[in-house]
């Protein structure tokens, strides 16, 4: 990477930034899920590694969260943007060199940020735990260069219209910078009290709603038509999805605080808007399901399609939960329980990870012009992810329902802890399976780069048969 940082712009081969972003994202995924698995083990066996500040749960929990959100998920997004945006504009990336710098600064900033978090230097605000100097770095040195590259590539495109995926990329890269700067205002300007509490969750909601969810969906809008060869079922439904994300997904931040003292109008408004999240969700899922018409055999045979469609299918339970669990009638039961933890993993590890994994698989093969080294390893990765996640989600959902029952029937808390113990072990096993799968993925992609069969020019990787 370092040799390209100071190379002349024309000497940086197209796709370089995407390759670096792709491999970085996989490495951060391994780190992030490894930390998750270790954290989960501490909830099951609290005396395992102990008496050491550096391995204390309270120091590592937020490192796991930020490694997967800003390492794995966001870098996989950046990787997808680096190759999908120019491909859809029939052009090259605006600046490959900016992309390489962006990847370098991203890894540097994230390493620094996670180190200070691990050391306990935290703002004490969930999801915006990074101290404010890291927040400024993330906005200006990580997201702003990315947004610049995406926007300039779209502006300089050589097609007349802009495809659905690129609307989402353009809008999300713009919105994420705004969300970062506004959502962290309590740290920049020392806002206090309920304003601070509310803005914390405004940030948390919008980083998911205006960054992770739309970009993940946008990736699927590219992968499925590209790999299956079917055109997107409906451009119009894509419109509906896009506009309903902007209008409905940006408003329900207060539904994260349904049990907290906030103005009642705000909670009611957020709750209604929260149910309307089903509009973009239904538009997205139905559009992609219908795009698959006649190509469902690829769900079985093709790894990228299998990953993407699994992620799309997970959007159904995700949004059914998301739309209704925040209404007062249900929220009073499951608020603050493991149910929410399960839901958050359904969004990030289920829905979004499966879509991005497909984009990284497909993108790295396409750019490196190498066929995936081993379908067997790919299959094992897929099933470890899916089974590990399912074990995690089912066990945490049950644990959450137990906690909810304990809460409303006023069970002594320690009895809830005892009842949850088996599910904490199951959660750790599930998380460890995901971690193991990701190590295999890293090996598989590394071997693809080294040993994968060269894809002949004029051919796409998925047109070649798998060899192993």
């Amino acid at each position, binding site marked *: 990477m370092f040799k390209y940082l100071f190379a002349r712009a024309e000497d940086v081969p197209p796709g370089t930034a995407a390759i670096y972003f792709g491999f970085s994202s996989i490495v951060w995924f391994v780190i992030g899920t490894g930390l998750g698995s270790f954290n989960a083990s501490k909830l099951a066996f609290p005396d395992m590694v102990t*008496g050491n500040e550096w391995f204390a749960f309270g120091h590592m929990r937020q490192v796991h969260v930020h490694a997967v959100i800003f390492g794995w998920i966001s870098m996989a997004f950046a990787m997808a943007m680096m190759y999908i945006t120019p491909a859809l504009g029939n052009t090259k990336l605006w600046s490959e060199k900016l992309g390489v710098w962006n990847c370098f600064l991203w890894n540097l900033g994230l390493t620094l940020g996670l180190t200070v978090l691990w050391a306990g230097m935290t703002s004490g605000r969930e999801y915006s735990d990074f101290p404010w100097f890291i927040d400024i770095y993330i906005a200006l040195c990580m997201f702003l260069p990315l947004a610049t590259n995406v926007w300039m590539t779209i502006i300089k495109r050589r097609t007349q219209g802009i495809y659905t995926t690129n609307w989402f990329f353009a809008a999300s890269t713009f919105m994420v910078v705004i969300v970062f700067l506004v959502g962290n205002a309590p740290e920049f300007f020392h806002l206090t009290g309920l304003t601070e509490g509310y803005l914390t969750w405004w940030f948390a909601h919008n980083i998911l709603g205006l960054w992770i969810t739309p970009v993940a969906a946008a990736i699927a809008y590219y992968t499925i038509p590209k790999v299956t060869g079917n055109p997107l079922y409906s451009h119009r439904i894509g419109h509906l999805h896009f506009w309903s994300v902007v209008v409905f997904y940006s408003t329900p931040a207060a539904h994260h605080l349904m049990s907290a003292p906030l103005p009642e109008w705000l909670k009611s408004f957020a709750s209604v808007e929260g149910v309307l999240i089903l509009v973009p969700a239904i538009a997205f899922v139905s559009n992609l399901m219908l795009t698959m018409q006649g190509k469902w055999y690829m769900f079985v045979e093709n790894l990228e399609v299998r990953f993407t469609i699994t992620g799309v299918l997970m959007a159904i339970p995700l949004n059914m939960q998301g739309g209704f669990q925040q209404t007062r009638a249900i929220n009073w039961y499951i608020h603050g329980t493991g149910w929410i933890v399960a839901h958050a993993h359904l969004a990030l590890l289920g829905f979004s990870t499966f879509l991005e994994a497909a984009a990284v698989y497909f993108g790295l093969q396409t750019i490196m012009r190498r066929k995936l080294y081993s379908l067997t390893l790919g299959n094992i990765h897929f099933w470890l992810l899916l089974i590990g996640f399912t074990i995690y989600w089912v066990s945490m959902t049950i644990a959450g329902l137990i906690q909810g029952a304990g809460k409303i029937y006023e069970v002594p808390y320690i009895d809830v802890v005892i009842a949850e113990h088996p599910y904490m072990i199951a959660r750790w096993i599930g998380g460890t399976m995901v971690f193991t799968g990701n190590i295999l993925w890293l090996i598989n992609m590394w071997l693809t780069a080294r040993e994968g069969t060269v894809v002949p020019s004029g051919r796409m990787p998925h047109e070649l048969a798998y060899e192993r």
Partner: protein
Amino acid sequence: MAFREYKIGARMFGLALASSMFITLVMPTLDIRSVGSTDIALDKQLAAGRETGFNLDDPFLLGKNKPLKVLLHADPKTNAPLDAPRYVYVFQAGTAFPSGILHPVTLGENQAKLSESQGQISAADKTVGAVFAVAHGAIDGKEYPFIENLTATRGWTPADILQVSKDEDVAHVGAGKTLFVREGCWWCHTLLPEETQDWQVFGAPPALGDFNGESPTAFGSDRKAPDLLHVGSRNSSREWLMMHFFNPRLVQTHSIMPRFDYLWGKTDADGHPIDFDKWRTEYLEYHDGKRVVPPEVPTYAKDSEIRYLIDFILSLK
């Protein structure tokens, strides 16, 4: 080419995002801003100080530059006993003042008026320090809490207060809350009894005005352990908390809480070094049934991090 053909779309997008930001940011902020502080909010910000998350006064979250909450039994000038002991908040020279002192508008309209006129908070000077207390006054026949700057109204200085106070009456609440944030207690323990039936077990849920001036609010979202907002009313035993923090399994066999023995530091209350390895070996023998009683938990030094944290936990009434 650019975005010319997307002129309408781009404007619609701007309009949609701007309206959504107006409804979700401007309207709630204006509404929340009009909420007046309760006694609890004043106590919280005076006890915790300006900021208990990352800040330049205390970048490594060690609990530096934090006020002290002191239970005062006697008038520090005359040494005459007070009618009833009262809490005062001691900001030694250089300690940052909380939001309500720097920006009284955040206290709420009437609270700010009283704090400035009767409480004389604008006379407080960070370079020499100040002593504050929560007082009550009336505007138009209605009672409001306000912040009184005792340094201005009574001439009590931080040094006066600390001179007449015993160590057991001094609570390092601000430093303790910093540790609560740094050690991630709030990942499992919420500070927010829910507005459901929680109040029967964990006490009353907080009111709108209970948060003015607090940063971070850190009420937590994922409750893997009991709510702590009123824990000081349920359990006020320092000895129990000490054992619980050193190894939670000593007092609660099934607890999954991590050990916080590293907060004891290197030495105990008498200045003897703490031998953690020996303690753990003996604890394992107890755990395996080879000892009848567990080893003694060392008493913490009075300036140890665990003392700060326990002070904060006990202040949660």
